[in-house]
């Protein structure tokens, strides 16, 4: 049996009260609930406060470059598609620097779960506006206020995402449940997590989010209807839906890749003789 103890990591370097703690706990709970032993889990992260997460629990870890979480996770997953691969990063990491990988991971539908700690700000570099900062958000790089934000859920639906969800780090049971669903979903799954940054985001606080978030399924929502989902993804001012906004099952990239038919690449033998036949094609 897998227990929370198995996932217990060392000391963290986050600020006291940071929304990241809730995400860490929810993730640990989800992994335990799914009975995944740590050695079968690989967490790939970028650079930022969010991206430090894998250092704070126990699992295989590649903490890579800012913005490059998804490609690293994609490469690892294709090398060994028996691993549970979770990608973790911030909003700057994933929607700013890494925006192109986000678009293409969505359309490729590689079976990875992507957790974005969306604190609507650059935390680690001390408070610049992020692509999801609310319009008008004043920071040192945006003294005139931030421009129109990117709506990650809208983009995810538009770009072919098959599991598009949002949760709130202040609601750990909800978040943990959603992470479980995301991991179980076959294909790319996005969980955008509203995460208060107590040091650099004085606007979008725990209280601010708590006042606004509501479960998308209350009173009712059909997550399989793309148009309805797109409409719900537009909601923000006043009321922010959390839960699975859109869900659509289609073949994963791994399933469609002939090279993976005979099992995980990492388990296959290296045999120079295999190319003998190819040589004759050049005669």
């Amino acid at each position, binding site marked *: 049996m897998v227990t929370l103890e198995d996932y217990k990591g060392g000391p963290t370097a986050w600020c006291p009260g940071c929304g990241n703690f809730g995400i860490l706990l929810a993730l640990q709970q989800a992994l335990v609930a799914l009975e995944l032993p740590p050695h079968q889990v690989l967490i790939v992260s970028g650079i930022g406060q969010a991206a430090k997460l894998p250092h704070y629990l126990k699992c295989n870890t590649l903490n890579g470059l800012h913005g490059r979480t998804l490609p690293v996770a994609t490469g690892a997953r*294709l090398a*060994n598609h028996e691993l549970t691969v979770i990608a973790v990063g911030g909003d700057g990491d994933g929607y700013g620097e890494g925006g192109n990988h986000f*678009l293409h991971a969505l359309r490729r539908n590689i079976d990875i779960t992507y957790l974005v700690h969306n604190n609507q700000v650059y935390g680690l570099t001390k408070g610049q506006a992020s692509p999801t900062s609310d319009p008008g958000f004043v920071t040192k790089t945006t003294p005139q206020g931030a421009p129109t934000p990117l709506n990650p859920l809208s983009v995810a639906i538009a770009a072919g995402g098959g599991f598009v969800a949002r949760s709130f780090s202040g609601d750990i049971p909800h978040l943990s449940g959603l992470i479980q669903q995301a991991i179980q979903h076959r294909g790319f799954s996005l969980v955008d997590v509203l995460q208060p940054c107590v040091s650099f985001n004085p606007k979008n606080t725990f209280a601010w989010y708590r006042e606004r978030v509501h479960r998308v399924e209350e009173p009712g929502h059909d997550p399989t209807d793309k148009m309805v989902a797109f409409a719900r993804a537009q909601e923000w001012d006043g009321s922010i839906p959390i839960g699975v906004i859109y869900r659509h099952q289609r073949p994963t990239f791994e399933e469609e890749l002939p090279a993976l038919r005979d099992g995980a690449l990492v388990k296959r033998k290296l045999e*120079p003789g295999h190319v003998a036949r190819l040589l004759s094609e050049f005669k």
Partner: protein
Amino acid sequence: MVGGEAGQGVQTVGLVLARVLARSGWWVFADQDYESRIRGGHNFFRVRAREGPVHAHSEALDLLIALDRNSIDLHQSEVAPGGIILCDGEKLKLEQQPPNTLSVPLERLAREAVSNPLMANTVAMGAALGVSGYDIGLLEDVLEGHFAASGTEVVQANVQAARAGYHYVTSELKVRTRQQLTPRGKAGRLLLTGNEALALGALAAGCRFMASYPMTPSTSIMEYMASKGPELGVAVLHAEDEISAMNMVVGAAFAGVRAMAATSGGGFCLMVEALGLAGITETPVVVVEAQRPGPATGLPTRYGQEDLEFVLHAAQGEFPRAVLAPATAEEAFYLTAHAFNLSERYQTPVIVLSDHYLASSYTTVEPFDLNQVKIERGALIPLGVDPLPDYRRHRLTPDGISPRAIPSHPGTLVVTTGDEHDEEGHITEDAGLRTRMMLKRLGKLEGMRGEALPPQVYGTSRPQVTLLGWGSTYGPLREAVDLLDAGGMAARLVHLSQPWPLPAQLTGMLSDSEGLVVVEQNATGQMAHLLRAETGIAARGHIRRFDGRPMSPAFIATRLKEEMARW
């Protein structure tokens, strides 16, 4: 040489003829010259056949097959005395022809023979063999292979068209080139490009993952790998960009497979950051950088060796790397396989530095000896069932190489980060640990230096002049030595297939040579710069070309004489 517009089939004509020669025992070298466009402009495919191994082109033409008028204008001056220009005078409506022109009504013959003017090119192939005194049967075999996928009808039509051309020149015209060729027996050699050889090397080495983004002249590596991926179990991804490609490769290599990317300089720019990630996380990756002349897009379909110093120093911070620059297609095969071994044994990035001349030229090589390809995975711990006690990915060991577990090993966690880290792979700020980790990583360079490929030496041991080259200039340089020798100048070639780390014996080899001339396809003398930085040896002279065109043996010999005249 076959010359014509892009889209006219220049490459097909040239390649079929080259294959005929290769199949019948000739050693062949064929280089390609084309522009960055799909139709129009001017392309050529230049085939050279010799009785022994050949790795260089030569400017002098015995036969010029001109598919358009422009090819005559551009190349007639290169036709050697006694050489012939073969063209369709009827179609090109040539008012005045150079005296050595052999006009064959290719299109008309094609129409007559197979009612298809598009087969004029095949007629030209037949005519070319006829004029060279060659056996048409060989061509028929090759055409069969070449068009097999299109069905017997297409094959038959091509064979007939070829015969029509052959017949026309042998029976009706009875013209012959000065240099007549005869088959030299069945050699069983391969005819392939540097890119194909390199891709085969990667496949032989068990590369299981490739992510890249198309970029001339590297693209056909990915294309070849992709075509064989389903059958051999190799995941080949056309990524959204080169940043993604290289990060995917790092992810795949970390997860335990042999992984590579291929690109050219512009795409390599975007891979640089992830190269550094591989460096600090000690992840073995192989990157092919197929150079072309820059800066930026530069001359995208042409030849340059302008990125040596870039790949040597690419990425912030300091970490060990090796740079291999295959001299020939044969080396492209073996050194690519070697690159995977090096990268896994030292757990660090290895760059294969290629270029257009190597990548796109066809050469005959003896079938690769697959027994020579050894799989050396260094400190990799095979996936097992028992947990590895107290496993630490970046354990400090005497030789700096840490046992490398594969994520998913039971009871074992593999942790790493692009931040400076402790032995376990967690972030550290500790000054002492930082120093030890730097020394651990950089220490690996010494091991690589110790086993750096020795320079290839060719020519006299008591030279008046030593030519130093690297990478794909090997063929032209080697022949230049022969030319110089024939002209009475005692020359020696010292050639590097591994520009980094430089082999230790290089200093000794060069220190007594007063007449050292470094030969490079660039403008600033990057190898000369590196040589001086590393050994203190300053070259006496330089031969540099940077117009995107390859130096021929004769070009080198001439420039050397000019150079030495100034001494």
